[in-house]
């Protein structure tokens, strides 16, 4: 079935957005009814928020990507669908039961295997300005690393209302623009649902959150982002668009010096003022995080911190788009 790419793009974007927009309120009601709620610690009152929002995120991704597969029938789309779905189940397992710090990276590495089995990759790394390197054996290891890294990176930035979904909206639309710039139109189409799913979910996740994505939501978004980076052959560009989240993970790991879950942290990096603004802790045992650094200059509201993270996301998105113009341009 052939149709112009812009029309296909509009169809799958609408499907992705509408699916999440209308299924999320139903999910909120269903989760609240089953008492699947958690406390929002950044609010002065006791507010319980339904979690996880992963099922509606996955529904939006699956419906739109399967529609795209009907049009294009490419192995890349199939790889994105399978890897993203596996990452969702890894997150769902962690949402239902508290699992060890190593479980998610290892399980997400397994989720990356379908990309290899389907051969939906090019074993070269393309660098801005300087060209590419062929790394057939090393690239397989890289695939196994990328999905756990992107999954956990998005999961680790999911600390305030709306941040994970809002940041993902910015990063994924930037990635779509980059894919268009390098003329990889089919994978650009496949990346559109990620942006629209994130945007629709942001409506319910923004301050004050009506639902939290949970591990199933954050890992689904992160793993899909990583899959697109691999099958779209834009690994370096994707890493640049994700830099604020990468910094957050880097700061966290370099201060705790081991892979642990956020719930295992003994001292919280952020405390509250009397008027319930967020404030960086003075506790030296607390890990350094992106939010703690933002708050180092003084207290801010949750919404203000979120907007600074979005500004950082927009800055990285601009760098990623500049980088995409530098691809294939040898000095």
């Amino acid at each position: 079935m052939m149709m112009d790419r812009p029309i296909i793009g509009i169809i799958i974007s609408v499907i992705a957005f509408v699916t999440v927009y209308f299924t999320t309120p139903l999910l909120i009601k269903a989760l609240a009814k089953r008492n699947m709620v958690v406390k929002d610690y950044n609010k002065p009152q006791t507010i319980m928020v339904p979690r996880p929002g992963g099922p509606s995120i996955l529904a939006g991704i699956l419906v739109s990507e399967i529609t795209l597969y009907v049009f294009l029938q490419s192995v890349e789309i199939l790889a994105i669908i399978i890897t993203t779905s596996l990452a969702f189940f890894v997150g769902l397992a962690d949402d239902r039961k508290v699992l060890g710090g190593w479980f998610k990276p290892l399980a997400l590495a397994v989720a990356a295997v379908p990309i290899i089995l389907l051969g939906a990759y090019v074993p070269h790394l393309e660098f801005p300005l300087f060209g590419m390197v062929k790394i057939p054996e090393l690239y397989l290891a890289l695939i196994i690393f990328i999905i756990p890294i992107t999954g956990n990176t998005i999961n680790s930035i999911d600390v305030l209302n709306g941040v994970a979904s809002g940041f993902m909206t910015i990063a994924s639309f930037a990635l779509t623009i980059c894919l268009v710039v390098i003329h990889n139109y089919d994978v650009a189409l496949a990346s559109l649902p990620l942006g629209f799913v994130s945007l629709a979910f942001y409506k319910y996740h923004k301050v004050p959150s009506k639902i939290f994505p949970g591990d199933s939501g954050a890992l689904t978004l992160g793993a899909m982002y990583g899959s697109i980076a691999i099958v779209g052959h834009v690994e370096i560009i994707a890493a640049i668009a994700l830099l604020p989240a990468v910094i957050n993970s880097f700061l966290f790991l370099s201060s705790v010096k081991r892979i642990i879950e956020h719930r295992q942290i003994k001292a919280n990096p952020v405390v509250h003022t009397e008027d319930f603004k967020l404030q960086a802790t003075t506790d030296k045992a607390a890990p350094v995080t992106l939010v703690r650094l933002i708050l180092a200059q003084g207290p801010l509201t949750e919404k203000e911190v979120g907007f600074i993270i979005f500004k950082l996301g927009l800055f990285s998105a601009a760098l990623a788009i500049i980088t995409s113009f530098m691809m294939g341009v040898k000095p």
Partner: protein
Amino acid sequence: MRGLPIFAYISVMWILIIIGGGLLVFIIAPISITGYGKLDHILDSGVKAVISISLVVAWIFIMSKIKNWIFQRKVSH
């Protein structure tokens, strides 16, 4: 401006990524090991992997030092 050091940090990371790409393409990729028969390919990949991992470790070390230099006083305050 709030978060200015973080914008600077992101810029430094971006520049280091581009420079690292140049090192990989012009110095590491052309390395070719011959004279060991069937082992050539494995040795070639192994040496490139070790150098690449060393570069990543160096990148993390540099970023860690820059992080301390930019942020340490801010956090301790």
